[in-house]
């Protein structure tokens, strides 16, 4: 049986390699927010209030491009809907916690933390204080994300506009999905989404950002059917 502290430390260690991508991503997120012309306090507040890298960048990019707030907020919801899946997967290990503790720990469920803690949970089902591992991964990610976005906001105010740092936005998202290019079904879904986004780019309120994922998810559901 591991102690709470040991589990917490284990979580920190397990998630440490991800810092190599989380920290630069946070710096880019902060720098781009400033580059797009937003108030630095607002850019930073998002890291606490939303705490979801990709969705933070999308939100700012859409608003700066003239999207309506409803579209921007909804797209954050769509992008972050993947957390429903994470929650469904790890809830089995958190069942014994009180309602309040469940509410608190939920804030720390993020991509990399979920991936590492879920791996650990599967191997160590019998540990009593399993959730401390999740606090270790999520807490570490939270602190690094805060520091990195702050650093990015400070750096961003020095980066000259000629560098075209905005181009880092698509590159960042390429880095997120590039490994899925190995799977044909994912490639099809990506192409459907990308091509739809170009076709519907002129749709009002920048709604292409919602229309294309809906079409792409529909295609994904069809592909799942064909697979069986």
């Amino acid at each position: 049986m591991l102690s709470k502290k040991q589990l917490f430390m284990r979580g920190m260690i397990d998630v440490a390699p991800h810092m190599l991508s989380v920290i630069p991503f946070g710096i880019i997120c902060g720098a781009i927010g400033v580059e797009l012309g937003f108030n630095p306090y607002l850019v930073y507040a998002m890291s606490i209030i939303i705490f979801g890298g990709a969705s933070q960048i999308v939100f700012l990019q859409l608003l700066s491009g003239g999207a309506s707030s409803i579209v921007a907020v909804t797209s954050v919801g769509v992008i972050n809907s993947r957390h429903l899946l994470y929650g469904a997967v790890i809830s089995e290990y958190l069942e014994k916690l009180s309602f309040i503790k469940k509410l608190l720990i939920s804030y720390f469920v993020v991509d990399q933390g979920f991936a590492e803690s879920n791996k650990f949970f599967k191997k160590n089902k019998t540990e009593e204080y399993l959730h401390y591992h999740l606090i270790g991964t999520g807490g570490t990610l939270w602190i690094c994300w805060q520091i990195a976005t702050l650093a990015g906001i400070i750096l961003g105010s020095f980066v000259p506009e000629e560098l075209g740092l905005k181009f880092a936005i698509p590159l960042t998202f390429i880095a997120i999905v590039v490994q899925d290019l190995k799977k044909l079904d994912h490639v099809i879904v990506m192409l459907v989404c990308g091509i739809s986004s170009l076709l519907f780019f002129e749709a009002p309120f920048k709604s292409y950002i919602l229309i294309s994922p809906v079409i792409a998810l529909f295609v994904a559901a069809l592909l799942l059917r064909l697979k069986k």
Partner: protein
Amino acid sequence: MTWLSITIAGILTYFTRMTMIALVRRDLLGEKIKAVLAYVPSAVFPAIIFPAIFINDYGAYIEMNDPKIFGALVAIIVGYFSKNVIATIFSGLLSYWIIIFVFLS
């Protein structure tokens, strides 16, 4: 207005995290929905990637020889083989900068 939107986006995001853990029975999401949710990144992020590369600041399609296309291709190749996020982003930026500052200036 932006502050309000951020707050709502934050609450919405928190609900995506908390709902399955604290509010509902986890088997509420059927296997089918879970399988579709696994496609969310592939179904969402290209809608950011494609317009950011193929459409310029004025809303028009770019030329096929635009440095952004080259930068994106380099990033895809580097990312695919290196599996490294930093290498992906910086190889793309660097190849883009080399073209705009060395060849086009």
